[in-house]
């Protein structure tokens, strides 16, 4: 069942569930598209996240109660429709090396793993994008294999270099730009995912997938990687 609550004078929040669930991102992504198509004249912005969709609207054009009613109608229609969103998978090359994986050595020791097994566990699945946020184009990916899960650092680092790949509990992510942050850094990609390239703005979408693959130190360096 869906639950709609007010989020402000010009925003509503639609809950699609109360637990993190791998079937929700696609459902929420589909519904966001549906709303964009049917209510484009009153909707200003949509923010999908793990279990919810935040909808901001133009209060000059529609009152809260009327929008609730229209959203409820769309939700009823959606339940009778099958999936319309096609899920894309983005492949990301990562150098899993101790020079760039700032927390890799500690992770391997704590988890009693060798590097090869760690890489296998981190790269074997296509991760689902559950949410975009924290900073632009920062995609929260899950679920990470239990054998390589680690809690956030007790004190966040002031600066994590752009392209760093991190793990926090059951989630993994790439830092698109230099940023502060408390995730355990295990590698780095050479791909520029920052907004320096404006096309990166919608590189990741909730409901899409991301798969990492390992590159060697030589490949990383040859393509301009910094240690």
């Amino acid at each position, binding site marked *: 069942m869906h639950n709609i*609550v*007010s*989020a*402000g*004078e*010009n*925003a509503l*929040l639609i809950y699609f569930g*109360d*637990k*993190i669930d791998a079937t929700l991102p696609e459902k929420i992504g589909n519904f*966001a598209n549906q709303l964009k198509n049917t209510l484009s004249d009153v909707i*200003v*912005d*949509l*923010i*999908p*996240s*793990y*279990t*919810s*969709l*935040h909808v*901001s609207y*133009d*209060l*000059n054009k529609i*009152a*809260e109660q009327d929008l609730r009613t229209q959203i409820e109608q769309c939700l009823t229609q959606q339940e009778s429709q099958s999936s319309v969103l096609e899920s894309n998978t983005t492949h990301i090359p990562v150098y899993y090396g101790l020079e760039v994986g700032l927390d890799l050595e500690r992770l391997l020791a704590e988890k009693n793993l060798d590097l090869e097994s760690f890489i296998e566990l981190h790269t074997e699945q296509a991760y689902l994008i559950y*949410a*975009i*946020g*924290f*900073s*632009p*184009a*920062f995609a*929260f990916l899950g679920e990470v294999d239990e054998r390589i899960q680690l809690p956030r650092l007790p004190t966040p680092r002031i600066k994590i270099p752009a392209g760093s790949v991190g793990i926090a509990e059951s989630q993994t992510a790439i830092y698109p*730009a230099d940023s502060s942050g408390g995730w355990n850094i295990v590698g780095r990609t050479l791909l520029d995912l*920052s*907004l320096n390239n*404006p096309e990166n*703005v*919608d590189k990741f*979408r*909730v409901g899409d997938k991301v798969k990492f693959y390992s590159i060697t130190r030589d490949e990383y360096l040859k393509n301009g990687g910094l240690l």
Partner: protein
Amino acid sequence: MSFKVIKSSFLSTVQDYGRLNHGEHGMSQSGVMDEHAYAWANHLLNNHFNDAVIEITFGGLQLEAQTDTFIAVTGADLDFKINDETAQMWHGLQIHKGDVLSWGNPKIGVRAYLAVKGGFDTPVLFDSRSVNLREHIGAKLAEGDELSYKGFNETTYRFIPPQYIPNYNQDITLRLLPTYQFNEFSINQRDLFFNQNYTVTNANDRTGCRLSGAPISIKKERMISEGISYGCVEIATDGLPIILLKDAPSIGGYPKIGTVFSLDLARLAQRQPNTKLRFELMNIHEAQKQRKKFNEFFEISF
């Protein structure tokens, strides 16, 4: 047609109404912190509601006009002068090539707005001219920058009835809409929230405003990150409120007790640390009615 930055010491940035439609890409709303002073600055010059202005925080800015034009300055009294003479605020002014506009130390309020006839013409990034330093979108003004603006072909300006010029010295009450997890806070905790004076702390910037006071609590096992509205009030782990503002991240994972009415956030944007404030409940119909009137007056429409 431009201004040249002679000196910029603290934080002056180009802002417009905001980057409203990129929440799904993880971007903040951005845009001016005081929508009231901003709307008047553009209105006085007969500009479009979304025209870009300079948001001057705590002063320390000097600009030289490179051509004749019309400006309006609103918001905080930051000792605004033209050629070392105190100049009029909340009023359209003609300025001439070579004039030096300066803002010194704050007298009352925090943020002043400089609008120019036709609006500043800095690059549009992701559908907005608003600078967001946290997101590495644009940069703050620096000595030597040239700030160009669009041309204009008429020179009329409007006037503000004096009773609409706010007094930023007063303590404020923020009207709060019961949103998000409001109902999950117990009645006792809500009473504690609404019946105390909070104080604005030094941790008060474009991202959010942290308050000090008596902590409140919520019985909630686990919060899942969800979309953030401008002005929502997070209760952090220490039980103290953080009011999330224009540069806040698009999603967040603390429980939220409500959302402050936007026109009260405009007043909050002019309050310095140590200001006392209280919250009181407001219903959504009243908030929408008041905001609708504001939007209609300033022709704000998406």
